[in-house]
């Protein structure tokens, strides 16, 4: 049986808003299984992104515990969390967030060199990955302003996976892309997952959610639904869509 890679116990996250506490995540217990492509869905304000940031160590929970394997990370300092992220996590953001003043290749290497030594093998790996996501040698020298949204997001994915993270987090990675670019990006995620990568992705898009193997539905800061699917491509697409749609309708999506 697959083991848990990430687990929470009574996780809470609150924000202070004009003197009143806004409880976004409430006593949440979840298990993220190694090798799963977990999709977190929910209506706006349900706490999807907040949960993602807390799970990934980008933000600290207000209460509760987060276990990464056997290690508790909820009490880590900011610098400890940064070190935790660099060794274990990869991130793909909705707004890409490439470094403006660096080329495509340097953007990828900036993420890599904080963890690994600069070797010809590392540079080759970065170039190979970039080629795999459809970029060519000419593109490596381009700056973010010279890339389309889809190209930039693909660079973002390569930057996220260059260090072979134990878990890849993605926050609505297709949210700012057109449908063609979205499909390309989702294909990359599917491909990465097939290779054994654990992924946690936040989305509100059905097409994106269909790529996952597990869908957690959030409402009012708690998980109200947990739906499992076969890996993408291993079942009938119509049935897959119908099943997920039924689940989401049940959840009130």
């Amino acid at each position: 049986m697959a083991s848990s890679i990430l687990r929470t116990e009574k996780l809470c996250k609150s924000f202070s808003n004009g003197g009143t506490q806004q409880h976004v995540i409430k006593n949440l217990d979840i298990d993220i299984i190694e090798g799963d492509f977990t999709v977190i869905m929910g209506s706006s304000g349900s706490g999807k992104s907040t949960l993602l940031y807390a799970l990934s160590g980008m933000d600290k929970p207000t209460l509760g515990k987060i276990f990464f394997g056997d290690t508790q990370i909820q009490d880590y300092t900011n610098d400890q969390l940064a070190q935790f992220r660099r060794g274990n996590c990869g991130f793909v953001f909705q707004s890409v967030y490439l470094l403006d003043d660096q080329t495509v290749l340097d953007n990828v290497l900036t993420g890599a060199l904080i963890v690994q030594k600069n070797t010809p093998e590392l540079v080759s790996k970065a170039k190979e990955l970039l080629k795999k996501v459809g970029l060519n040698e000419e593109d490596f020298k381009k700056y973010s302003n010279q890339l389309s949204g889809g190209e930039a997001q693909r660079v973002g994915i390569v930057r996220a996976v260059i260090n072979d993270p134990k878990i890849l987090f993605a926050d609505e990675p297709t949210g700012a892309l057109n449908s063609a670019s979205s499909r390309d990006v989702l294909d990359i995620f599917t491909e990465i997952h097939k290779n054994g990568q654990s992924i946690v992705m936040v989305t509100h898009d059905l097409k994106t959610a269909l790529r996952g193997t597990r869908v957690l539905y959030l409402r009012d800061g708690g998980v109200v639904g947990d739906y499992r699917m076969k890996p993408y491509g291993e079942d009938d697409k119509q049935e897959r869509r119908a099943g997920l749609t039924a689940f989401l309708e049940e959840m009130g999506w």
Partner: protein
Amino acid sequence: MNILRLSLFKLKKNKKEAFAIVFLTMITTLMLSVFAANISKANKAYDDSFAQSGSKDTCVMIKKDKYRDEYKDLLNSEYGIREITETECVYGFTLDYKTNNGDERTYVSVFVPEKNERKIEDFVKTDKLTDEEVEKLEHPIWLPMFFSIGEGYQAGDTLTVCKNGRDYPFTIAGFYKTGLYNNSSYGYKMVISDNDYELFKLILDDGVYGAYATLWFNSANTGYNEDIFIESCEKLSGEELNSYFTYNSTRNEKLNSLQFINMFMYFLAFFSGITMLSAVLMIIHRITNDIEDQMQQIGVLEALGYRSREISLSYVYEYVITAGIGAVLGVVGAFLVSPLMNLGIQNTIGRPVTVKTEGGMILLSCFIVVVLVTVFALLKAAKVKKYPPVVAFRKGIRTHHFGRNILPLEKAKGNINIALAMKSFLCDIKSAVGTAVCIIAAGTAILFCVTSAEFFGHGIDGLLSMTGDDIVTEVELLNGVDTYAVRDEIAKMPEVRKALVKYQQKWLSVRDSEYPGATVVFDNYNDAENIKLIDGRFPEHDNEVMTTISRKQYDGVDIGDSIVIKGNGTETKFIVTGMTSSMMNNGTMLYMTSEGYCRACPDARPNIVSVYLKDGVTMEQFEEKLNEKFGTSAKDSVNAGGADGTLEERIRAAADEKLALLTSQYGVTNIDYALVVDGQVITGNSRHFIIKDVSSLMTLAEQSMSGVATVSKYGSFGAMLVLSAVVAVILGLIASSNVKRQRRRLGIMKGMGYTSKDLMKQIALKTMPVTIVYVIIASFAAMYVYSAFWLMVFGTVGELNIPLTIVADVVLVAFCYAVTYISAGRIKAISVTELMTE
């Protein structure tokens, strides 16, 4: 009104930056105000005090036995000066004193009886005992104001003159306002009773000491020149007068008295210039960054109908308000500092400061600072015009590095933080240029202060090393004694490291030069320990002389040139073989060999043994051993008193005391005596007296230099701290601007796993290449400024401490790194989620 509200909102948002600008403008205004309000204060205080004394503005003193009435007529015939007061005084040169509590002091002293003082000036008394108390005093003395203001003496205190081993105690009757002779270099005029005056005429009659005829007159606008006047007197009499005259005037004494204050004031102006420059550059830097950061907001405001001029004004108001607050605080500080400045000026010039604080000048300084800030803010904020709404929405014309990739990371080696910092620096090199001027200027000033603080930190040792002569113990021998033989004997003493034969220092004129030179004579200059050859070589032959850098500046005399030195009725040509520097006597020293000196002054005889004591040996220990070897010096024998013993022994002791008095004070070279007491003949002679006097040049040097050394040490240290704070503020502003500007970038990096410390390191490292370059430039500039300062102020070449400068450079670079690193600490406040949700 809306614009003002916008400015206030921005101010509230950027509190830290606003505080930094407030600090810089406050320091600028404070220093500029103190400079402007006080630069004329010392001058005015001097003039007021002089006017109140009723004194003439010029005085010439010629040794009484050399004076002729015709000299007075020369003043009339050559300069049209008719109102001349002729009187006399006793010139005490450097006399030793003991204060009430036994402290030893040395003052250049001019003694006048009250009747003469009243001829010279109004003799306006200030703090004094009552008339009845004064009447009762056996030995009253009236001192010039310096003693009450600068030295803290009070009426009723005792001041004891020590001469030839005898004490002459005086009671201070009070103080009076004097026009001239209220200065440590030119001397202090002390008014004493007729009896005491007559006594001093006798006991101070030796060499430069003694009675002088004095001519007091007003020389302003007459074309009068001391040296030309004395030359005329020499022509008239056919006598050499250089060694027998001294002079003073308000021009000279004022220049001397105000020298230190003026130097301090110009330093303040220099430092305020640096901080002003820093403040303006920082404001320019901030406005540029603000406009770039807030480009989209500018677009929104323009879209809403705000004119670009109005938006520009919101930036201008922000900095004018900030600078205004700083300037007001600076003004308050200047008013608070004013009483301290008055005290400092009074203590330095020894005259009361009666001028009110120049409020107008302080406010003018404040106005200048605010206007400068306004002008530069207006010029820079006008940049908003370049961005119409559409361009502003697109964040200006973003032309990000579409050219060559500088320092590609695939080729980077070593630490990624260093690689990223260098990459960031190279991409953003233009922004570094803006800070160059202020960092270089502040760095120059800091390194100058470090060198000065270190130099003066050793007390007077530093100054002693600049005297251009060996400051040692001098044993003056009686005439007729074989100086070389005594030198050999002294050299053998276990307390002594080295003993050299020297000549009494003389002032000799140099043809075609306004500046007479004090002589320094060595048989062999390799024996000298404190004379540094700057160029050429030491004199080796009797027709060679070494001069100073100052004289080169004054007279244009260089190595290889000839100069004619006027001795006692002789004029001798010398070739200049080398250059040295000396802060003594305005650096106009003349260095000759013994043979050379004897050519210039044929009547000169060596009568001094310069004694270099071993480490740890005190002057007292040496003197004790010297007395054991050569007998008590004639000076000390004067007060020895009668010995116990037989009648013959007591008579011999009394006779010896008389002989000592005659030989030590009246220039008698040899005495034989025969006394008949109850039919018994007692004979004796003065030949057993060998030593006339023993003195330590170090004691005099310590007294005259320790004040300057202490003030300079603490002044340099204080300035160093203030300037370091300025540099810290500049770098802090740059670092916080970088953080603010790169907020998004830093957030992304944090998301990737870079820690706050990694990013702080990158920001600090980014500033290092330019900081290192600026500090190196500043080092050279500081060395140049330091040398120029020493030449200008002390007439000598400042000794550069290269190892210290290198260490200071390293410390300064480390300081800059630390400040930038700490200032970049606000990165910690940026969380990744904040970045992603902004």
